[in-house]
C-alpha cells in the first residue's frame, strides 16, 4: 500500500543475527524534516547507533534509503543512499548511487532497509514484492560483482542486484557496494560494513509504483525542469557526448590536475592522452543513462587488441581517470580503463585505490618503501605495475593488502603520513586545492572526509555555473560553499542526481519535491532541510571523534611549481573563518547549541 506523497510508507528491518525480517512504518516526521535518502538514512542511523561504534562490529547498522522522488518521473530520480559509519574514516559515510536498484526497491514496497547484527554464515536478501527472505549465499561468497549479479539474475529472474565483491567480504576498508553491476555506492567502505555482516547481496524485484501528492503540479514541475536540462549545454549535450572525463583538459589548463600524488604540481603535458575526447576515440562503445535520466553521462567502454588488458565494462569517470592517470603519472588510457574495470568488477573505490597506488609510487621513489615489500619496481608512469597492483588489491594478495588500507595507513606505516593526499583518512579527488581555492575548503570541511560531491566548488570556480568565481582567490568562497553543501544535501536526499544541478537549481528541485510530497513550504524552507542534514552529520562526526578541518601539508605549504597557479598554496585558514561564520558556528568550527536548536537537530 503506497502513500500518495512519494513514499511507500514501509521500512524493512532485517536482523541478521536473528534472521528476522520485520516491516515497520516509515517515520514520517523524520521524512519531513530530513527529506529522504542521505538525510533520512543518516537520521535513522543517528537515532539508533552509538557514534563511538566500531564500524565493522555486529552492533553497527547498515541502512539503504531511497528518497521521496526515487522511482518517480522526476528528473534523474534513480538515486538511493547507503548510510553507516565509514570504516575508512571513522565518521559518517553516506554513499550515493544511481542505476535502477533504488526505484526497484520502492516498486517492491519499501522505502528503505535497515540491516542489524551479523549473520553466522554468508546470506543474501531476496525481495519479490511482499515476499522477503534471507537465503544462503555460500555459492556466491568468493564471487565478483558481475558474477554475483548474473547468478542472482539466473536464479530469480528479472531482479535488480546490489552486492559486494571479494574485497567487501574481506572488509577491505574502501570496498564499495555495487548495483546494476557498475553503479557504485563507492566511498568510505560501505562494502566493508556489508561484508562484516556476512551480507553478500540484495536482489529485488518490484511490480508496484510510487504515487505523488499533486500529479498535475508534479508533471508541470518536471516538464519545466526537463526542458531546462535539455536546453542547457552541459546536461543537454555535453555530459552525454563526452562523459565526466571531459573535465581532464579544462581542469589541467587552469593548472588544477594533481600530478604524481601532487608531488609535481598540477599541470601535465600528457593530460590529453587521458581526456574524455581521447576516451571517446579509443574505448567508448556508447553512452548510457540511469533510471529516468535524460543526461546519460555513463560510459560503456571496451578494450580490444591489448592482450591481458582486454575487457568490457563501464567508465572511467573523471575521478577514476585522474587517480589512475595523472595521480599515477600514467598516460596509457587502456591501462586506466582496465584498472577501473577491476574496481567495478570487484567493488572497490577507484578514487582511493588509484590515489593509494600513487602514494605508494612516491614512497617507493623516495626510498621509503623497499622494493622487496612490493615485489617489483613501482615508479610513477608504470602502467603495468599500476594495473597489477590493482588486481593484487582486489585479490587481497601480497602488497595489495597494504594498498587495501588506503593511503593514510600506508603512508603512516612507512613513516610519512604527510604524503597521504587525504582528509580525515579519505583521499581527495581530482582537483588541486592550491590552484582552485574553494575546492580545498570543500575537502577540508566535507562531512565524509576528502570528497568533491558534498559541495562541488568546481562548478563556480572552473565552469562558471551558476556564477563565475576566480579559482585563485579566497573571497566569497566560504559563503558559496555553505550554500552548495546545503543544496547538495537536499538534492542527494530527494533521490535526484546531483548532476541535474548543472542545469537546474533550487527552484526546480524544490518544485518537484513540493508537488511530490504535497508540501506548501517555500524554497528557502526546503533548502533549510539541507542545512539541517549538514548539521546533523557534523554533530554525529563530532561525537564520533572527528579530526579537525584541515588539508595535507603539501597543499598548505608546498607552492605549485608550475602552471597557471604557480606559486600558490591553499589559503585554508582565511576561508575557514568565513565558512564557519557563514554556518553560524563557533570560530573553531563547532555548531553551537543555539544553531542545532534553531535547526531542530535532535536524536
Amino acid at each position: 500500500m503506497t502513500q500518495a506523497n512519494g513514499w511507500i510508507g514501509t521500512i524493512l528491518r532485517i536482523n541478521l543475527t536473528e534472521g528476522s525480517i520485520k516491516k515497520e512504518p516509515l517515520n514520517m516526521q523524520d521524512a519531513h524534516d530530513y527529506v529522504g535518502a542521505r538525510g533520512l538514512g543518516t537520521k535513522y542511523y543517528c537515532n539508533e547507533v552509538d557514534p563511538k561504534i566500531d564500524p565493522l562490529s555486529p552492533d553497527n547498522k547498515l541502512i539503504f534509503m531511497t528518497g521521496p522522488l526515487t522511482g518517480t518521473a522526476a528528473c534523474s530520480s534513480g538515486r538511493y543512499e547507503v548510510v553507516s559509519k565509514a570504516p575508512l574514516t571513522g565518521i559518517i559515510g553516506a554513499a550515493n548511487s544511481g542505476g535502477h536498484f533504488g526505484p526497484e526497491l520502492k516498486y517492491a514496497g519499501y522505502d528503505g532497509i535497515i540491516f542489524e547484527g551479523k549473520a553466522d554464515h554468508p546470506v543474501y536478501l531476496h525481495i519479490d514484492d511482499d515476499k522477503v527472505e534471507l537465503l544462503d549465499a555460500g555459492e556466491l561468497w568468493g564471487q565478483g560483482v558481475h558474477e554475483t549479479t548474473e547468478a542472482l539474475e539466473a536464479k530469480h529472474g528479472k531482479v535488480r542486484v546490489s552486492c559486494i565483491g571479494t574485497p567487501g567480504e574481506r572488509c577491505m576498508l574502501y570496498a564499495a557496494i555495487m548495483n546494476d553491476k557498475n553503479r557504485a555506492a563507492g566511498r568510505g567502505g560501505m562494502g566493508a560494513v556489508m561484508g562484516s555482516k556476512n551480507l553478500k547481496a540484495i536482489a529485488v524485484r518490484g511490480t508496484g509504483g510510487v504515487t505523488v501528492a499533486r500529479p498535475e503540479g508534479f508533471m508541470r514541475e518536471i516538464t519545466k525542469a526537463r526542458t531546462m536540462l535539455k536546453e542547457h549545454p552541459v546536461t543537454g549535450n555535453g555530459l552525454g557526448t563526452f562523459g565526466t572525463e571531459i573535465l581532464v583538459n579544462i581542469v589541467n589548463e587552469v593548472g588544477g590536475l594533481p600530478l604524481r600524488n601532487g608531488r609535481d604540481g598540477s599541470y601535465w603535458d600528457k593530460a590529453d592522452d587521458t581526456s574524455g575526447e581521447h576516451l571517446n576515440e579509443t574505448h567508448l562503445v556508447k553512452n548510457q543513462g540511469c533510471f529516468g535520466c535524460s543526461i546519460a553521462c555513463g560510459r560503456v567502454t571496451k578494450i580490444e587488441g591489448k592482450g591481458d588488458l582486454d575487457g568490457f565494462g563501464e567508465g572511467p569517470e573523471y575521478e577514476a581517470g585522474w587517480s589512475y592517470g595523472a595521480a599515477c603519472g600514467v598516460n596509457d588510457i587502456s591501462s586506466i580503463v582496465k584498472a577501473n574495470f577491476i574496481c567495478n568488477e570487484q567493488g572497490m573505490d577507484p578514487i582511493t585505490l588509484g590515489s593509494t597506488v600513487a602514494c605508494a609510487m612516491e614512497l617507493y621513489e623516495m626510498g621509503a618503501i623497499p622494493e622487496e615489500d612490493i615485489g617489483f619496481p613501482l615508479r610513477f608512469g608504470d602502467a603495468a605495475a599500476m594495473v597489477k597492483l590493482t588486481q593484487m588489491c582486489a585479490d587481497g594478495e601480497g602488497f595489495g593488502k597494504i594498498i587495501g588500507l588506503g593511503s593514510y595507513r600506508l603512508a603512516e606505516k612507512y613513516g610519512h603520513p604527510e604524503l597521504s593526499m587525504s582528509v580525515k583518512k579519505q583521499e581527495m579527488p581530482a582537483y588541486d586545492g592550491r590552484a582552485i581555492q574553494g575546492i580545498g575548503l570543500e575537502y577540508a570541511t566535507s562531512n565524509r572526509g576528502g570528497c568533491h560531491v558534498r559541495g562541488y566548488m568546481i562548478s563556480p570556480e572552473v565552469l562558471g555555473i551558476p556564477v563565475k568565481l576566480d579559482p585563485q582567490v579566497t573571497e566569497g568562497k566560504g559563503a558559496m560553499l555553505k550554500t552548495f553543501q546545503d543544496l547538495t544535501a537536499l538534492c542527494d536526499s530527494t533521490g535526484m542526481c546531483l548532476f541535474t544541478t548543472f542545469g537546474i537549481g533550487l527552484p526546480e528541485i524544490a518544485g518537484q519535491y513540493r508537488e511530490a510530497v504535497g508540501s506548501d513550504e517555500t524554497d528557502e524552507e526546503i533548502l533549510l532541510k539541507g542545512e539541517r542534514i549538514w548539521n546533523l552529520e557534523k554533530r554525529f562526526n563530532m561525537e564520533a571523534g572527528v579530526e579537525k578541518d584541515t588539508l595535507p601539508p603539501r597543499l598548505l605549504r608546498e607552492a605549485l611549481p608550475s602552471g597557471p597557479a604557480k606559486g600558490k598554496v591553499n589559503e585554508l585558514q582565511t576561508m575557514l573563518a568565513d565558512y564557519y561564520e557563514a554556518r553560524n558556528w563557533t570560530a573553531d568550527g563547532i555548531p553551537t547549541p543555539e544553531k542545532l536548536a534553531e535547526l531542530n537537530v535532535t536524536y
Partner: protein
Amino acid sequence: MLVKFLATYRQIANCKSCDMPAPSNVLELMEALCARWPEFDGLILNDERTDKGDDVIILVNGRHIEHLNGVATPLTEQDYVVITPLVAGG
C-alpha cells in the same frame, strides 16, 4: 600564438591546436577564428559580436578571461589561449 581547442570545438577546427598570429585582444581572436572556421560563428560570439557567447570558456595562459579583462584582454605572441564549450563532470 598557440590556440588550443577542447571538446566539440576540436571537431569544428579539425585539430587540437593551431598557431595563429596574435591579434591585439581576445575579441579579435574570436573574430579571426570565426573567419577561419565559419561554424564558430554563432557559437563563440554573442549575437552583437561584442562579447563571447554565454556557453564558451576562454582561458588566456590558464586564466579565465572573466578574471582578466574580458574580451579586451590583450594578447601577445607568447600567450596561449584555450577555448572550449561549457563542459562539466565530477
